[in-house]
C-alpha cells in the first residue's frame, strides 16, 4: 500500500498536549469531534488545511508528554495518513502502532512544507516527489509490523485473543 500526500511541517518536541489539548480530550470519546482541534495550539487552521492522505512531518521527539491515545486517534480522524519524524517519544510510538497509524523515522530536514510525499511501508521507501529524492527510513521491527498489518492491536486481539508474534 502506497501512502501519498503533502507534508505539513512542525518542529522538535511536539507534545501530546499540542496534538490534542487536555481541555478537549477528557470530555468525549468522539474522535471526529476531537480531530477538529488537532495541532490547534501550534496552528489554529491546521484541520482545515489537510487534504486526506497528507502527512505530518516533524523533528525530534514527536509525541512526547502524556499517554493519551486520543493523540494518534485525532490525527487519524483528521485524515492524516502517516507521521514522519526524526524520532518519536515511546508511548506515542506504541500508541500509533496499536491504533494503526503508520509512522516513519528518517531525516526530515530533506522535506519542506508542502512537499509531495510517497510512502511505501512494505518496501521501506519514502520518496520526496517534489524534490525527486528517496529518503532512507528506519525499518519497523517485526512485532510492530505484525500489529500494524493486522490493522492495530484491537484487530490483533480479535484474531488471536492474546499477543501472537510467531
Amino acid at each position, binding site marked *: 500500500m502506497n501512502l501519498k500526500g503533502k507534508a505539513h511541517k512542525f518542529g522538535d518536541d511536539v507534545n501530546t498536549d499540542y496534538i490534542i489539548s487536555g481541555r478537549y480530550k*477528557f470530555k468525549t470519546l468522539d474522535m471526529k469531534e476531537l480531530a477538529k482541534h488537532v495541532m490547534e495550539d501550534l496552528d489554529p487552521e491546521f484541520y482545515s488545511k489537510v487534504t486526506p492522505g497528507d502527512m505530518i512531518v516533524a523533528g525530534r521527539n514527536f509525541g*512526547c508528554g*502524556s499517554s493519551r491515545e486520543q493523540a494518534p486517534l485525532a490525527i487519524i480522524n483528521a485524515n492524516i495518513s502517516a507521521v514522519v519524524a526524526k*524520532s518519536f517519544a515511546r508511548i506515542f510510538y506504541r500508541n500509533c502502532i496499536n*491504533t494503526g497509524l503508520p509512522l516513519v523515522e528518517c531525516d526530515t530536514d530533506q522535506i519542506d512544507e508542502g512537499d509531495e510525499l510517497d510512502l511505501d511501508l512494505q518496501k521501506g521507501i519514502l520518496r520526496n516527489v517534489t524534490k525527486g529524492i528517496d529518503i532512507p527510513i528506519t525499518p519497523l521491527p517485526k512485532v510492530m509490523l505484525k500489529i500494524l498489518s493486522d490493522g492495530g492491536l*484491537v484487530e490483533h486481539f480479535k484474531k488471536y485473543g492474546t*499477543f501472537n508474534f510467531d
Partner: protein
Amino acid sequence: MGKTIAEKILSNKSGVDAKANDIVVADLDFVMGQDGTSPLAIQAFREMGARRVFDPSRVAMVIDHSAPSPLLGVSELHKQMRDFADEQGICFYDIGDGVCHQLVPEQGHVVPGDLVIGADSHTCTYGAINVFSTGVGSTDLAAGIISGKMWFKVPETIKFVLNGRLPAGVYSKDLILFLIGDVTADGATYMAAEFVGPAIQDLSVEARFTISNMAIEMGAKCGLMEADEKTIAWVKQHSSRPFTPVSADPDAVYAQVKEYDVSNLEPQVASPHTVDNVSPVSAVAGTPVQQGVLGTCTNGRLEDLRIAAGILKGRKIAKGTRLVVAPASRSIYLQAIREGLMEIFVEAGAAVVTPGCGPCVGTHNGVPSDGENVISTANRNFKGRMGNNKAFIYLASPATVAASMLTGRITDPREFIN
C-alpha cells in the same frame, strides 16, 4: 555479561534471558488506568471480544483527572468506569481517593521487582521502589487487563550517579529538574534511567518518588532505583505482598553513565514552555506570578505539604496571588488535617481542592487566564497544559512555590529557611 535492573526484571517476567534491544512478551504484576485513558480502554476491551479481566485483584482504575466531574460529558465517562469496575470486581478508586500514582504504591499494589503498566505517562513513578513501571496508551491497557501480558522492547539504560548531599532548601524536585535540563527532554528516549549514589540514598522514599515520576520528562521508559533499607521498610509498611528486590550487576552494560556532585546545587526552575528549559532560581527570581499550585503526582505527598507549610506558617500569600493546594491522596489529606497543615494553608489564603490532577492537567480547579504566570509543583509546563495556551507555567519545588506565593514573585525559598 552483567545486567541492568531493567534487563533483569524483563528477563524474570518473560522467562527469556533478555538483553537491551530484544523484544519480549512478559507477565504483568499490576495494571492501572485513570479517567483520561480508561474509557477508551473499556471500549477496546469490548471490541477485542473480551469478557473478563485476567485477575481483578491486579487491575485498578482511578478517577483522578477530573475529580469530581466538572462536566456532563466527563460524568458519562466516569459512569462507564464505575459500571466496568462493578462488573469486573477490579480495584476501584473514586473521586477524592487521590492521584493514581500516589494510590498504587500507597495502597500496597506494587512491590520491588514488579513489572507494571499504567495508562498514564507518569507510571514511571514506582521506579523509586524498584518497580519496572511504564506508561502505555488505552489499547495497550485493554490488552494488558485481558491477557496479563505486554510486549516490551528491552531498553538500554542511562545511569545517573548522584554524589554528595543536597544542601538546605534544595530538594529532590530541584535535582530532577536539573538533570532534565542537562540531558534535555529526549536525552533518555527509549531508555531506562537508573538513579544511584549517596544523594539518592540520603532521600526519603517520598522524595525519591518525585525523581522517578519525572523520568518520562527526559523521555525515559522508567526511572529505576535500587531497594535499600528505607525502601524495604516503606514497602512493608504499605504492602503485605512478599517481594525480592532487583539490583544491577556490577558489570552491567550502560548506554551512558553520568556522574554529578549535588552538594552545591541551587533551587531550580523550569520556565515555559518545555520541562528542559531549566535554570537556577536566581536566573528567574523576581518574575511576577499570579497563581501557585501545590500538589500533583510529583509533589503532593505529606513531606511536600510539610515543607510548604513550614514556609507559609503564620504568613499570608501576597495580594494579587492565589494558591491551589491538592493533596495527592485521601490519607495524605487526612494526615495533613491531623498535623494542622491544612489550617496553615487555609489561614495563609490558599484554596484547598479535592485530591486529584485537575490543576496540573487543565481539566478544572484553577485554569489560569491569558498572560498569567503560574508557579507549580507539577511535572509539565507545556503551552496549554493547564487549560490555557496563553498562560505561562514555571515548575519548581514545594518550597519555591510557597516562597513565591508569599512575595508574588519567583523567590528563592532559602530566603525563608534558616
